[in-house]
């Protein structure tokens, strides 16, 4: 039975780890975009 | 884009001759590869010290793993020199078809690795007291097909990993997974011959299939890889 729970937990740990990595990358990207926007004057001229 | 066969063969011959001449003159790469192969054999022999019966069971795997490592070292060398002298850019602009270049490189690598194997084999036989119980002549086509399997993919992936960071580690990273079926076939075929228990025929057929499939794939895709930018 322990193996059953271990397998199900492992599955979700792997998926959640990947999702956390994605979310972190998204936040890093967001802050990078904000920095870019700050550094630039009004675009398109 | 199709060239008369004579021209293609001419390019292959010229490139191959150039590579062999360069290697012979420099001798650096040959010497270091030879010594590396010797070291590999010695280290393996220290690590595994089986009796004659056991050694026939495991020698197939040991020998081919040792050849694989030696081949990887040899393969990294050959393209690195091209890159140093910007020969690669010259190849890209030249009208010579990319396939000829690839075949020439692969054949050159094949000769180098075959020489390494010819030198390592007697040492293995000596250290492991090997004696083939099956038809020993079959070991020659197995060695040839197996070496070509490693070399053809290795040349392709070496070219691929040229412009990558961590180039030296990229080659084995890319090569080993793709080589697994060939490795399986080589090891099982060699073990079958050494132990004399089974027929190596199926494995030889598998190796031939692998070689044909991947040689065609390499030839078709090499041009794209060479011009990728």
């Amino acid at each position, binding site marked *: 039975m322990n193996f059953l729970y271990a*397998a199900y937990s492992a599955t979700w740990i792997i998926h959640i780890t990947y999702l956390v990595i994605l979310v972190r990358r998204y936040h890093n*990207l967001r802050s990078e975009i904000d920095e870019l926007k700050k550094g630039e004057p009004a675009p398109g001229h | 884009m199709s060239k008369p066969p004579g021209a293609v063969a001419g390019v292959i011959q010229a490139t191959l001759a150039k590579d062999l001449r360069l290697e012979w003159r420099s001798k650096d790469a040959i010497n270091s590869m030879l010594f590396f192969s010797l070291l590999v054999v010695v280290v393996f022999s220290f690590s595994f010290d089986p009796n004659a019966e056991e050694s026939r069971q495991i020698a197939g795997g040991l020998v081919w793993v040792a050849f694989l490592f030696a081949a990887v070292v040899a393969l990294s060398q050959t393209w690195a020199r091209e890159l140093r002298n910007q020969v690669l850019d010259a190849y890209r602009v030249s009208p010579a078809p990319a396939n000829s270049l690839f075949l020439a490189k692969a054949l050159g690598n094949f000769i180098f690795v075959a020489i390494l194997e010819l030198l390592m084999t007697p040492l293995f036989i000596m250290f492991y007291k090997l004696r083939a119980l099956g038809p020993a002549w079959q070991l020659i086509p197995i060695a040839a097909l197996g070496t070509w399997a490693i070399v053809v993919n290795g040349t392709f992936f070496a070219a691929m990993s040229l412009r990558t960071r961590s180039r030296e580690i990229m080659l084995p990273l890319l090569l080993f997974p793709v080589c*697994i079926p060939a490795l399986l*076939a080589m090891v099982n075929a060699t073990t079958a011959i050494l132990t004399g228990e089974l027929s190596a025929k199926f494995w030889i057929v598998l190796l031939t*299939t692998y070689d044909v499939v991947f040689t065609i794939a390499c030839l078709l895709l090499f041009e794209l890889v060479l011009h990728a930018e």
Partner: protein
Amino acid sequence: MKRQAEGDECGHENCMKRAFPIFAVLTAVLLSYALYEALVAAPTEQTMGNVQRIFYYHVPSAWTAFLLFFINFVCSIQYLVRRDKVADSIANWVAIVLGVAACAAAVVIRPLPSGVEPSSVATTGLAITGLYFLVKRYFSGSRTDALALVTAEVGVVFCTVVLVTGPLWARPVWGIWWTWDVRLTSTLVLWLIYISYLMLRRFSASGQTPVLAAALAIFGALDVPLVYFSIWIFRTQHPQPVIGGGGSIDPRMLHVLLINWLAFLCFAALICWSRYRLEVLQREVEEIHAMKGLQDPRSSG
């Protein structure tokens, strides 16, 4: 023309943005339901007991991973043939022929190998053709490459799940953590190839990455069937334990299995969608950086 496309994109994207949370909630509900079915409602297996329930997570993850890798393969092919009209039409025809052949085989070939249903053969064939043209229609140009990366990454995640749950199932039931049987070995090789694929993408110079990665995916697609076939022949000569052996399945278990597969497919679609948007955003940012790097005073949108 670009403005108009942007306008269409914005409308399309807003619609997608609204759909995402709804889809996410639906998927969560489906996953919970599937979990309940797997752990509670499904009948207990006779010989293996409750541990057999790992099957409901192991197999759908495997099928999802294979589907994702197949999409990656389709993207790689399309990326490589996009410039060459002849190769492109050859690829189109191959995709069509495969679908037709699979349907024909399902109807004509009797008897099929054990465990293989005619309907699954036909569905697989049609799925191959359908996926090929769907990807072509909705992900063309540089988006092909982005989709390739996304499916490779998410595929590796699902494949990792397969390789972790497999041994966890094998150990209590068959007493061994691992065996070199057909399916496990092929899955391991597939996983290794795609890890090397991801490493190649990470380490190569940005201009060439799509082509090199596509070439590697083709090699992988040639390699894995060879592994499968060679071990299959070898093992029929030397039978060894087969994890999750074939044969028929109780219809109630099949029902739970399919529910879990649907749930994981939706979950995979969600992750791929998010990852895809992240990738597109990332490429835009990189483009901006690159343009800034050029310091071209004429640069505008």
